[in-house]
Structure formats: structure tokens, C-alpha cells
């Protein structure tokens, strides 16, 4: 049985937020008498993550995904509840715990701006107490996996965003952590750079059995990396389970475009009891429920003269978009 590496129980977090009325009067009032109120951004959440799992955290902006990640890696103190990561209380930030984890943020960087990335790698290696030989070996291994070479010796300020992100990853993984917290790692990257990064993360997970917790607004990141997703809505968990189950639940039907040999066949098909989305001449689009798709297709192929047939998955972004708006999924 695979052990839980992350165990979260009844976790809540509140922040004191100050609010300000508009206009000059509001500004003066805000300056002299600041009104603060406690805002509960994470509300009594519980979940476990097993070793080697890749879990995607989904939610709209401000839903609380990043706050959860930051509590998991020990940056923010929880207000209530308990967290155990790799057997440690994260907020104590014990040396052995920190050697086990890493945090990568797509919008923030740790590399030294004026120097080539290789200098930052060796600095990190000394912080993680790696000798020069071991550091060199790990840099070689990771740079091969990330397919970067010459970029290691070019000042960071002169690298493209994609090259910089790869270097950030290398800097964050030089100590070979078992748990990776990734907060929108593909933010701002072009399609190829995004794909390469995903490929790398997949490979890293397979080779090291590292646990990965990921937040991203690019659905491709989630669908290609995560089997399991945790949906966060206004600080609470609205769904925790398999991604494909969620997709089936949110999108129970498939659209099938059928090209008939003649318009008469299309009319016959239109009147045969299927839910028709539209019909243009001999082309007809029908909706079929996922659980009856095989029998329905068999029926159509046997009884109608079909020239061609296309099964369309609903756009994933559209489906996931529903997740960001809802707060309960009973599956």
C-alpha cells in the first residue's frame, strides 16, 4: 500500500484584510483609522496525497490554491487544523523537511539576474551541502533532461522566458526533492515551452517517483499531468478525485458529426430519436450520452448509409470553466 506523504486535516486560514472607501475622504480615513476584518480564505479542508501522485489544484483566481500550496510548504502558518508533509509539520521548516521539498513559482524567480544560471546552481548546491562533484553530476543530468546546454553560461537577463523557466526548474531541483510544489509553472510560456516543461515533469515523476502538487490555469497542464484534481472554490474543496470522472460528470455527452451519403439519409437520421444539435444538408451533429455511445454508434452504422463520422470531445477549457464557477460535485 502506498503511504500518504501529505496529510491535511480540517485546515483553515484567516487573513486580516484592510478595506478602504473610495475617494480622498476614504483615503484620509484609511490612513488615520484603518479598518481591518478577518477573512477566512481557507475553510476547513481535508485531503491526503500519496507518494508519487501528481495532483492538480483547480480553482478561479483567489480561490485559495496558492495559499494551500504555501501552507503545505511551510511558508504560511495555518490558523486551524493540521498538516503533515513527509512526516513533518511544514511551518517549523526543519532542515530535513526543506531538503525534501521545493517550490517553483511561474511568476517569481530565484536566479541571480546578472549572472549565468550555472552560478545560481552552484550557490544552491552549497546551500544544500552538495560537494562540487555531486553538484556537477546533478546539473549535467537535469540539464540533459531539460535539454539546456549553452543557456547555462549566458546571463539570466539575456535568456528567453522559456529558457529562464527551465533554469529555474534546474535551480529548484538540484537537491533532488521528493515533493514538488508548482504554482503556475507554465505562466507566460509559449506552447512549445509549455509542452517541454510538461514532458520534463512527467519524466521527473516517473524517474524519481516524486510527488507533485500543481496549480495552473492552462488546462493542458492539468489534463496531461494530473490523474487526480482537487477543485477549490472560495477556500473550500468542491471536488477531490479523478479528473476523468469529473470530466464525465461535467460533460456526460459527446457530440458526433455524421456525414450521410445523401440528404434523405440525414433527414431519416434526424427523425430517428437522437438529440440533434444541428443539421446542414447531409451533415448532422447529434449528442449521445457517454454510457451508450458504443451501442448507439453500432445502431447508426447498421441502419444508415454513412460516408464519414467524427466524435468530438467538448473543449476541456469549457468543461473546466464550469468547475471554477461551482462549489459542489457529488460523484
Amino acid at each position: 500500500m502506498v503511504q500518504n506523504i501529505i496529510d491535511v486535516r480540517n485546515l483553515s486560514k484567516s487573513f486580516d484584510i484592510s478595506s478602504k472607501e473610495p475617494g480622498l475622504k476614504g483615503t484620509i480615513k484609511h490612513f488615520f483609522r484603518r479598518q481591518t476584518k478577518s477573512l477566512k480564505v481557507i475553510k476547513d479542508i481535508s485531503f491526503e496525497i500519496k507518494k508519487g501522485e501528481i495532483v492538480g489544484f483547480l480553482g478561479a483566481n483567489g480561490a485559495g490554491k496558492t495559499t494551500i500550496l504555501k501552507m503545505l510548504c511551510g511558508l504560511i502558518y495555518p490558523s486551524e487544523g493540521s498538516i503533515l508533509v513527509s512526516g513533518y509539520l511544514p511551518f517549523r521548516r526543519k532542515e530535513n523537511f526543506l531538503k525534501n521539498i521545493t517550490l517553483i513559482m511561474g511568476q517569481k524567480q530565484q536566479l541571480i539576474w546578472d549572472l549565468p544560471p550555472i552560478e545560481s546552481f552552484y550557490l544552491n548546491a552549497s546551500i544544500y551541502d552538495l560537494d562540487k562533484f555531486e553538484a556537477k553530476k546533478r546539473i549535467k543530468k537535469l540539464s540533459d533532461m531539460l535539454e539546456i546546454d549553452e543557456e547555462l553560461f549566458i546571463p539570466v537577463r539575456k535568456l528567453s522566458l522559456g529558457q529562464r523557466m527551465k533554469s529555474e526548474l534546474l535551480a529548484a531541483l538540484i537537491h533532488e526533492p521528493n515533493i514538488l510544489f508548482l504554482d503556475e509553472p507554465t505562466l507566460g510560456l509559449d506552447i512549445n515551452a509549455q509542452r517541454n516543461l510538461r514532458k520534463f515533469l512527467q519524466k521527473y515523476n516517473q524517474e524519481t517517483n516524486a510527488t507533485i502538487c500543481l496549480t495552473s490555469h492552462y488546462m493542458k497542464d492539468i489534463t496531461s499531468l494530473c490523474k487526480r484534481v482537487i477543485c477549490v472554490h472560495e477556500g473550500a474543496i468542491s471536488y477531490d478525485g479523478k479528473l476523468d470522472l469529473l470530466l464525465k460528470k461535467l460533460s456526460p455527452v459527446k457530440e458526433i458529426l455524421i456525414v450521410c451519403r445523401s440528404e434523405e439519409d440525414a433527414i431519416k437520421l434526424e427523425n430517428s430519436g437522437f438529440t440533434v444539435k444541428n443539421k446542414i444538408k447531409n451533415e448532422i451533429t447529434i449528442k449521445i450520452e457517454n454510457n451508450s455511445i458504443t451501442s448507439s454508434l453500432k445502431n447508426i452504422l447498421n441502419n444508415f448509409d454513412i460516408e464519414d463520422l467524427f466524435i468530438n470531445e467538448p473543449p476541456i477549457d469549457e468543461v473546466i470553466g464550469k468547475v471554477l464557477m461551482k462549489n459542489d460535485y457529488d460523484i
Partner: protein
Amino acid sequence: MNLRKYLKVYKKFLHTSLASELEYKTNILVDLITAILSLVGSIFLLSIFFQNNGYIGGWKFEQALIIQAIYTILNGITNTWFNPNLTEIVKHIREGTLDFVLLKPIDSQFFISLKKINPSGFLEIMIGFLLLLFCIRINQINLNLSFLTLSLITISCSICILYSLWFFISTSTIWFVKTWNAIEVLRSFLYIGRFPLNSFSFSLRIFFSVFIPIAFITTIPSEVFLGLSVLWKILLEFIVATVFLITSRKFWLFALKFYSSASS
């Protein structure tokens, strides 16, 4: 604490900071010229004060030059270590990059206090030492081991007090977010350290000894150089420095509990 690891990391800090700064050669040259001009300006200002009767607060011009020399050394240390690192804390907190520091298996106060170095500050330290040697000669100070030890102790205490004051202000960013002005106020108070404490009125002397202990920073080490210091003052400076240093450490650890990181 693993001393060997910390020395290794500090060596890396030195290497990367020097490499970063040497990317901008002109900047270093400008800093050197600024340091020389600032010293010349300060000595000129001092000479104006001493023009009439040759004494201020019981100090001769040659003696007051020692304070200027110590001030220049301390200002050099400020520019070499405190300015590049401690002002960066404010940026780290505002932009949330303190996250990276806190997640490293190394003491966060060590990391944020010593990561960067500004090599042009070394030039100021050197100028300060040259001026100090000149002062030792013109004041005919007899160098011996106990004198050197006491000088080293008092100057180290001055560095600790200065560091702690600056670190307090920078750490308070965790609550107040912007504290640039407070740092500027501290720097301007430091300018006061260029003059003997006795040259100020009684109330200002109390203020600069008790509330913002600028007096300890330059006057006491200078008194040691001139053989004017009494043991209780040195002991008091040592106690103040220790209390400040320990409190700055406790304050940092306390403040981190309130760190909420910047939103992404």
C-alpha cells in the same frame, strides 16, 4: 549550526556578488569617486566648525578627525553589506521572493543579511583606515595590544548596533510593507555620528545615547583611540550591542510568524 557549510555558502555569496557587481565597471568607478568626494566634503565641513576656537565639545580638530575616520569605515561597512542586503529585505517581502529564502535549509537571517556585497564599499573602508592611520600619527597615539583589542571590540559593537537598528526597521516591513523612509531617517541620524557627542546639547546627547544609540557607534571607539574612554562606557556599549543583536534575532523569528507572502 554547521560552520563549515556556512563558510562555504558565504564564499559563494562573495563570489556571486563580486561577479554581479563587476558586470558594471562604471558603477564601481562612480562609487569610488563618490566615496572620495564625500570624505573631502565631510573633512571640509569639520574644518569650518573648528575654524574659530579650534575646539568643539572639548575635542580638537585632529581628534575629531578620528571620529570622521571611524564614521567612514562604518559607512563603508554599511555600503558593503547593510545597504545591498537589508534594503533588499523590503523588496523580498513586498514581492514575495522571501519565499525562496525561507524554503532554503539555511538560516534565513544569515541569508538575507549577507547574500550580497557591494565591492565599492571596500574602497570606503580602505579610505577610512588610511585616514585612521593618519590620525594615529598626528595624534601620536601609541599602538599596543590592549589598545588594539579594545578598538576592535568597540568597533565590532558599533557594527552590531548599526546592523540591528537597520535590521529592526527592515523586518518591520512584514507589518508595514513600506519602510524606505525609516531607513533614510536612520541613515541621516548616522551622519550625526560624524561629530563628537559632547558637541550636542544635553537633551540631544540623551536622545542619541538612549533612544537611537548613535553616540555608541562612533564616539566611544574614538575615545578608545584617544585614551579618553572609561571602562564602564566600553562595557555599556558591549551590553547595548549584545542586547540589540539578540533582540534583532528574536524580532526576526517573531515577525516571520506574521509573514503572509505576496499574492501570486
